[in-house]
């Protein structure tokens, strides 16, 4: 996306620094409203980072789901639960230890990965060229991402759609499933609630 490699590195560095700052702010923040807004900012930064990495589809998803819908849903949750975190009673030693160990394991895991942006990583040797050549040979849609998602690997996408479906049904059952058992009617049948 950005032609000049040093400019790209600069933009990446700025975005990653901001991401780290936002993450620290989320960890220190005690007001849940602030946490929700900061995680929305985090998603926007992540979307910008994806654009720098030329993954526009992922950036679009991150911006619309991470920064849009989940912020609204989390704010709606705060309306139900109240927005202040309860003060910490137990010590933070064990959680801190677990996070450090897991974080170290993840960083250790990245050591074995091929270098960032390298062209002879295993995924660029077999899988990606096959898709690209097949798309060219058969004149598939120019956006190969769509062709991969909805055609080459439509099984995966069917699974993902089913996951969205299952998650939606789960949330609906949790939030409005009890009305039949308790004998009370659903709220939208009795009164229209238009406060958010």
């Amino acid at each position, binding site marked *: 996306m950005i032609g000049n490699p040093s400019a790209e590195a600069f933009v990446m560095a700025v975005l990653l620094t901001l991401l780290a700052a936002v993450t620290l702010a989320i960890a220190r923040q005690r007001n849940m409203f602030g946490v929700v807004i900061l995680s929305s900012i985090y998603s926007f930064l992540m979307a910008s980072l994806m654009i720098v990495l030329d993954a526009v589809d992922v950036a679009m998803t991150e911006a619309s*789901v991470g920064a849009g819908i989940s912020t609204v849903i989390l704010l709606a*949750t705060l309306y139900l639960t*109240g927005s202040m975190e309860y003060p910490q009673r137990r010590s933070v030693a064990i959680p801190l230890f677990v996070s450090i160990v897991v974080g170290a394991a993840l960083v250790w895991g990245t050591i074995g990965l091929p270098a960032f942006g390298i062209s002879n990583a295993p995924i660029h040797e077999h899988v990606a060229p096959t898709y690209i050549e097949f798309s060219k040979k058969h004149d598939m849609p120019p956006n190969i991402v769509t062709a991969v998602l*909805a055609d080459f690997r439509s099984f995966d996408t069917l699974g993902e*759609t089913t996951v*969205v479906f299952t998650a939606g049904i789960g949330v609906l059952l949790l939030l409005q499933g009890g009305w039949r058992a308790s004998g009370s009617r659903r709220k939208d049948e009795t009164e229209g609630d238009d406060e958010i």
Partner: protein
Amino acid sequence: MRLDLILRVGAKLVLPFILLFALYVQFHGDYGPGGGFQAGVIAAGMVILYAIIFGIRAAKQIAPSALVETMVPLGVAIFAGTGVVSLLMGNKFLDYSDFAHGYLHAHEWGILIVEIGVFVTVCGTMISMFYAFVQRGPS
């Protein structure tokens, strides 16, 4: 609910363009970034913005609960049904080769139908989740 006039008028100006953009992302997915998932979220975002500004009752007139809750399984049914149709045509599951004449045409049709399935499920799920949260009320 008293809100700013500017907010209401501004939202009314923006809403049709959000929906148009969702449809663009949906049907232009073959050529540009995006597809059913992103388009579904954007369309749901339009309904949610409408609900936030004009109230949940007004939003239910354009997207009734029964409709969005039907959309949740309907999209999966469209997607899986496409696979069953391709099975009935004698191909593998979700192999679109016989949907039209010519390889490209057939696969474009297949992708289009499948993406509509994704759109329907994602859009329905997002809106009905939002409705479920808002209707709950603080306990």
